[in-house]
C-alpha cells in the first residue's frame, strides 16, 4: 500500500508487532510504521468486529487504536516508535488490565 522514499536517511530501529520484529525509522509514528511494514495490521472494531486501518493519521478518527507496551486503546498515529516497542493489534474493545 505504501513504500518508503529511497533517500530516507533516518536511523532504523526495531519494533515488535505481535512478537514479529519489523524495521521502523526514527520519527515514524506507530501507525506509519505498521502501514509501511506490509503486514496485516487491521484491527477489529469493538462493536461488530469489522476490520479497520487508520483513516485520518492526525488524531481525530481513533481507527488507529492499538495496544502499545501492554497499554490498550493508544492512538498509534500520535505515538512515535521507540526501540523495542511491543505492539499488539487490537481485537475488539480494550481489555481490562491492558
Amino acid at each position, binding site marked *: *500500500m505504501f513504500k*518508503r*522514499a529511497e533517500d530516507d536517511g533516518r536511523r532504523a530501529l526495531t519494533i515488535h508487532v505481535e512478537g514479529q520484529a519489523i524495521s521502523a525509522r526514527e*520519527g515514524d*509514528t506507530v501507525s506509519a510504521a505498521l502501514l509501511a511494514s506490509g503486514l496485516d495490521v487491521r484491527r477489529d472494531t469493538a462493536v461488530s468486529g469489522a476490520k*479497520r486501518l*487508520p483513516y*485520518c493519521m492526525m488524531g*481525530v478518527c*481513533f481507527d488507529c487504536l492499538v495496544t502499545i507496551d501492554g497499554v490498550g486503546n493508544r492512538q498509534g498515529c500520535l505515538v512515535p516508535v521507540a526501540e523495542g516497542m511491543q505492539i499488539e493489534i487490537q481485537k475488539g474493545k480494550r481489555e481490562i488490565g491492558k
Partner: protein
Amino acid sequence: MSAAPKHEQYDVVVIGAGPAGLAATTATARAGLSTLLLDENAGPGGQVWRAIGATPVKNEALLGADYWSGAEIARAARDGGAEIIHRATVWSLDRNLELGVSVGGGSAFIKAKRVIIATGAQERPFPIPGWTLPGVMTAGAAQTMLKSSGLVPDGPTVLAGQGPLLWLLAAQILRLGGRIDRVLDTTPRANYLAALPHAFAFMTSLYFVKGLAMMREVRANVKVTTGVTELAAAGTDRLESVSYVTAGGRRETLPVELLLLHHGVVPNVNLAMAAGVEHRWNELQLCWTPVLDADGNSSIPGIAIAGDGAGIGGAQAALWRGRIAAERAIKALRPTAKVSDLSPQLKRAERGRAFLDILFKPAKQFRIPQGDTIVCRCEEITAKDVLDSVAIGATGPNQLKAYRRTGMGPCQGRLCGLTVTELMAEARGKSPQEIGYYRLRAPVKPIMLSELASLPKSDEATKAVVRG
C-alpha cells in the same frame, strides 16, 4: 519523554503548534509574557508544516516552498522564550481558564490569564458507501505519512474529492515517485458559475498561480475524471474497488488498493465547544465556526481562537490571526504595551477565500448519506439508523445519543457530528443551526482513570466524597 508543565500558572497558554499557535507563542513570549505552548504532536508545525525539521524528505523542491516557510516560524517560536511541550494532550478547558493537560501518562491542571486556542482543522467527514474499509483514508492522512515518514502509495491508488489539498497531495506523491492511477474530481459543475463573481479576487490572490501550476503538473501525469456525481468504495474486509458516476451519467469501476478522500477541512471544535465557546452554523463553509470579534476573542472572556479553528482561512491567514490574538493578549495583560494593527495583513491573506469556499462547497450527496452508509464510524451507525430514530422521536444530535450512541465512541463526534447535524436537519425540515450539535464535555480526548485519580487533591475535595 516530554516533561510536565514547569509552573501552575502562566500569562498565556497556547494550544496547538501549527501556524497560528507558533506565531502567537512567538509574539507573547517576545513581549515578556510567560507563555506555555501545548501541542499533541511530536514536533512543531501542526498539519500544514507537519514534521518540519524532522521530515526525511530533504529535497526542498518536493514538498514546496510553502511547506518550508514553516521552518523559520517554528524556529522563531522555539527561540522566543516560551515553554513548549509536545505530545501534550489538553483534555479540559473551562471558563475559569483552567486547563487539564496530559503529558507522558500523567495529568496536571494549570491556570492561564489568557488562552489562545489554535487547534486548527480536521478533514470534513466524507461518508460514502464503504468509507470504513481498510484502504480508505483521507488525503490528509497520506500527506501526513508523506511528510513525516517519506511514505508514498505504491499500489493501485485513486484520489477522490475536491479542493486545493487534493491537488497538492497528488503533486507531492508524484514528485516522490508514488503511484496514482486516477483523480476523481467531485467539484459540482454548478459551483464554477456560482464562484464566478469572486474570481477576480481569487485571481489576484496568493493561491491562483500556484494552484494552476499544481493542477497542470498533476494532469500531465495522471488521468483526471471531473464532474463525478457518485462515489462508492467496495470490498470484503478491505478495499478492492471504487465505483463512480461520471458527469455523463456513466457508472465505472476501478480496481484499487488505496482510496484517498478529501473535500475540504473544517474547524476542530471539540475543545472550544467543551469550554463553552459559542459556535454558529456557517452556511458558506457548511460547518460550525466560533462567534469571534475581529481580534479572535470568543464568547468567553480570556479565550481567543486563532487559525483554522476560527473558520477555515489557510496557513497564511492563520499566521496573522495568531499574531492578532497575541497582540490582544499582550494589550490585555500589559496595557502600556504598544501593539500594531495587523488587520490589513490578515485581509490580504484571506483574499480569494470566498472563491475557494463557493467553488469547493461539497455536493449534498457527499455530505448527507443514505441507506446503509455508515455515519458514525465508532458505533457503526448508518444513515438509515439515524433516520429511523428521527421517525420515532429523536429531535437532535443529543437525543440521538440515547437512541444510537452516535458521537459517544472514542472520536467523540469528530467524524460524524457534521453529518448527523445535516442529516437530522434535512429529515426534520430544520436548519442545522436549529438542530444544533453534540454537547461536548471534558475530557475531550480519552484519558486514563488512573491519571485523574492521581491528580493532587485538597483535603476539602477528599472530604467532599466521604460519607457521614
